[in-house]
């Protein structure tokens, strides 16, 4: 059976990045390329205009069989219930999402309708609701993917997606499609924090002391 792969997440959570990974991995994408690449998404948005009308018209959904389509979280509720969906849910720190949104709107000469704090609250509430709803839906098979993990360890994510979809993908091309320079709105501007496994650099001597302390309290 051809799978319907849905990439979802809040705006600016890495959905376009994931669409690009899937495309380069060998998954056909359902897009009409109406929205062109720009400074906010230089590699493209991979959107499909008819998704915006999903509330009224879902007749196009069969065109998504065997393909990946980007659908924002708010519209997941309107997907036909008689179909099965493989959902790739992108997750990113809400603070970073709001900062990235603000920057995008400013580039377009627009302002945010709500304050940053209000946006964070609304997003957190929405995420809680949609995740609770997804738990109840038998026709959604979901994998949650961290934006940060895609940036820091694209290989790991690519392998997880391959396993999740049960489809052989071009892992190398998926890895190469991730551009870490586009990670522009880090929530914490702390030098060195994004380097994974800094603990691996603790000297051997320090490790021995850690082992000793843990042993004394019965942890080893």
């Amino acid at each position, binding site marked *: 059976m051809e799978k319907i792969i849905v990439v979802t997440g809040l705006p600016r959570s890495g959905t376009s990045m994931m669409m690009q990974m899937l495309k380069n991995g060998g998954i056909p994408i359902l897009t009409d390329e109406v929205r062109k690449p720009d400074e906010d998404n230089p590699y493209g948005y991979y959107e499909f205009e008819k998704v915006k009308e999903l509330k009224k018209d879902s007749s196009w959904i069969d065109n998504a069989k065997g393909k990946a389509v980007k659908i924002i979280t708010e519209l997941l509720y309107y997907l036909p219930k008689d179909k099965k969906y493989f959902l790739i849910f992108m997750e990113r720190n809400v603070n970073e999402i709001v900062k990235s949104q603000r920057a995008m709107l400013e580039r377009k000469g627009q302002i945010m309708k709500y304050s940053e704090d209000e946006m964070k609250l609304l997003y957190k509430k929405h995420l809680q609701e949609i995740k609770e709803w997804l738990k109840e839906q038998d026709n959604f098979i979901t994998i*949650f993917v961290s934006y940060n993990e895609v940036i820091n360890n694209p290989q790991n994510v690519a392998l997880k997606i391959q396993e999740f979809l049960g489809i052989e993908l071009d892992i190398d091309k998926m890895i190469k499609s991730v551009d870490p320079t586009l990670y522009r709105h880090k*929530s914490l501007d702390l030098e060195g924090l994004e380097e994974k496994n800094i*603990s691996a650099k603790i000297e051997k001597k320090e490790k021995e002391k850690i082992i000793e302390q*843990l042993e004394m*309290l019965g942890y080893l």
Partner: protein
Amino acid sequence: MLRNFFKKNKNKKVVIIGLDGTPYSLLKNLINKDKLPNMSQIFSQGYFGPITVSLPEVSSVSWSSFMTGANSGTHGIYGFMDFKPGTYEIYFPNFSDLKTPTLFDELGEHSKKSVVINLPSTYPARQIPGILISGFVAIELEKAVYPSSLLPKLKEFNYRIDIDTSRARTDPEFLIKDLDEALKIREKTADYLWENVDWDLFMVVITGTDRLQHFLFDAYVDKDHPYHEAFINYYQKIDAFVGRIYEKYLKLKAEKAFFMLSDHGFTQIKTEVYINRWLYENGYLKFDTDRPQMVSDIGKGTIAFALDPSRIYINLKGKYPLGVVDKKDYHKLREELKESFLEIKYKGDPVLRKVFFKEEIYTGPYLDYAPDLILLSKHGYDLKATVQKDVVFGRSGLQGMHTYDDAFYFCDKDIECKTIFEIKEKIIRTLLEKCS
């Protein structure tokens, strides 16, 4: 309403005292016996109650959950040690491995400064908006302090991150003395920073309570124990410390809130339960040496293995180098292990209360790194994952073990919490909400 929700109030302060490992039941007991006059008075107004904590119920996980409001699947810390992904190589997760911003970072985005003293799981210290002195497990003081300009003052105080546990474990006289010394230094440091630093959130954690209870819990339980009075006396010193901080708190000219909590409870050990030995005796675990030292000495044919204290991993093909379990057998094996674990008995008494599958208690992007099963023991049965034992049940000399459901929480503003995961959000709202 939303627009007013986060209106900043510059004149709000929050004070948090952490007592590592202090059980709710112990505090209630000592308060009822009039041993803790300050906490008795403080807890008589506001909300004081038990909370449940993280699983596993160890400080590195629980304090991480306190700081982030998240479970391990989101913040990424599953224990004091873990495997490097795709290997059996052990590493020791530290503050740098925490995947989620802390409450101090989030408050900093609203220009709120925090002073944090001796909070476990914050080593090595990194920049936070304010001051951070790391707690256990912290090896070098130079790496446990942000900003480093504070180091000379801490050295002047003879600041120590922890007591000398290697000596204290077997020398109760020394334990009591060293706990006292450490408490004095902690209080001196807290006093200094309270007066000399501009802060919005002030947090100090006492970890001596955890050490006392690991090494001398029998002394609490047994009134005739030679160190029973010394045990109570230490808690009375803690009570005096809390009273002094609370007095300073009352004098703050600001809207304020006072919180106290522990990261797990404690109870007396009946027996230790060596889970890896049980797995070995039941054919699930093999070693590549006759004298395994650590779980990384795992051998071919291993089906499942454990990491401290209660984490069970299935040796999946494709996930681990010597993985033998096919994915199609995963769920059946999990069920089989769960049933078998629940059957483990000590003198006829089942040792486990419950066995969880990972998705039952963890959510988030790091769920893949979670143990496949997590064991919750009954009080008295201290689960261990050491591979150096040749029996399933035994003792090591430790007297107290952690508990999941007897930690405590208090807030003077009547803000209720039932789990450690809720506290961060309540603190943030307290500091950022418009004054009523």
